[in-house]
């Protein structure tokens, strides 16, 4: 299994800072905006973005939550390993008329985002939903879904995997590209 690092070190940090600046351009003081990290791996990026934004804006009132879309997925029961085990959802605010920024680490086929858009409806009718991703795997979409904020764009083939490692869980920040075995 071959791995190559796509992004790490200071560049990783700069990319997150740039995403925050882009968010500020569109959302100002975030009075009507909320951040929602998608379970399981989007929540780390959402936490980072929230911390960074609060530091830049000198506020501690940013509203954020975590969304699990397991029950809304279209591949429930299509996995041979059995049904997916749900992660907790924690959204203790009303989404009605808010600008929602959905946050995930990697955008690939778009199916996770599709089910998240369904899942979010259970919490009200947002004024607007935007999508922020750290990695956009271009040209591999199954659905007409595009991100509004992109960390980096990656051209990859289907047999490859893109993983984001976080300081909190993997003891380093980096984006890696994994090549599957030849006979896989």
């Amino acid at each position, binding site marked *: 299994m071959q791995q190559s690092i796509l992004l790490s070190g200071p560049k990783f940090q700069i990319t997150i800072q740039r995403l925050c600046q882009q968010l500020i351009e569109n959302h100002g003081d975030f009075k009507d905006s909320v951040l929602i990290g998608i379970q*399981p791996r989007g929540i780390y990026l959402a936490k980072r973005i929230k911390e960074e934004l609060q530091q830049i804006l000198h506020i501690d009132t940013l509203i954020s939550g975590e969304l699990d879309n397991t029950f809304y997925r279209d591949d429930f029961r299509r996995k041979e390993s059995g*049904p997916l085990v749900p992660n907790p959802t924690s959204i203790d605010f009303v989404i009605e008329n808010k600008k929602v920024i959905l946050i995930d680490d990697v955008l690939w086929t778009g199916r996770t985002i599709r089910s998240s858009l369904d899942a979010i409806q259970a919490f009200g009718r947002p004024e607007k939903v935007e999508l922020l991703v750290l990695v956009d795997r271009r040209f591999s979409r199954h659905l007409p879904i595009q991100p509004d904020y992109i960390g980096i764009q990656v051209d990859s083939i289907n047999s490859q995997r893109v993983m984001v490692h976080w300081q909190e869980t993997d003891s380093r920040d980096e984006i890696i590209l994994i090549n599957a075995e030849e006979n896989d």
Partner: protein
Amino acid sequence: MAETAQQLSTQHLLGIKDLSVDDIQLILDTANTFKDVINRPIKKVPSLRDITIANVFFENSTRTRLSFELAEKRLSADVINFAASSSSVSKGETLIDTVNNILAMKVDMIVMRHPYPGAGVFLSKHVKAQIINAGDGAHEHPTQALLDAFSIREQYGDLAGRKVAIIGDILHSRVALSNILCLQKLGAEVMVCGPTTLIPKYIDSLGVKVEHDLMKALNWCEVANMLRIQLERQDISYFPSLREYSLLYGLNKALLDSLNKKITIMHPGPINRGVEITSDVADSEHAIILDQVENGVAVRMAVLYLLAGKRAF
């Protein structure tokens, strides 16, 4: 936290006996998420939208049937209801024929309550559908035991080492058997308490403590699960009168107050107020009877969701 997939070891839910400890933990953990779902403004998820479920009840039920139906609807399954009293069963149709006719209408899962022990096991061997046992005679009532375990876990965090007393008509109770099996698998200590005539002869083989003095049982336990006297299953007299039973084994406020600790009171319903439990106890802060009912929907959603995950597409 990774995206993980886990599955039950069984295709049907026939009894707690067939479940592993991991199965039970998986169901309880999944139920936690569903409890969150049913407390949202929109209480529904689309997971089972392509599944049809028949609720086949050969015996009366209020809570269990409503609870299953709500669980099914909140998972977006299509639901049909069947009550034996208003069906062709009274015209002499056999169980397998009845169920096969339902299945011919493209039904995927059967939730069944039946007066005969083992009816679910029998059916699972003869028809092509997933069977969920909603009570078979005096044998098992697995979803009740799971929701009781879930409710105790909610109160105490963990079941290991907890002391649970099951009090009342143990002999005729499927809730008692399923509860004993489930609690023991999760590491709790179980005691049964009731008049000698209502304790099954071979109860020792289950490894539970037996007590005939209500006061001693209450002093021992942290959780008391009060069972109803099942007069409809009693072919002979097991005690002189309901009044005597209630004097010896009924739980009242004075008894509770005389204990120097707070215990949790459970009841699977339906309650016979004034017999096994008085109103002031049933409605007190000690009782989690209505929490059990709420948890029932979440636990049944988890069971249906996980069993549906076992179906090939």
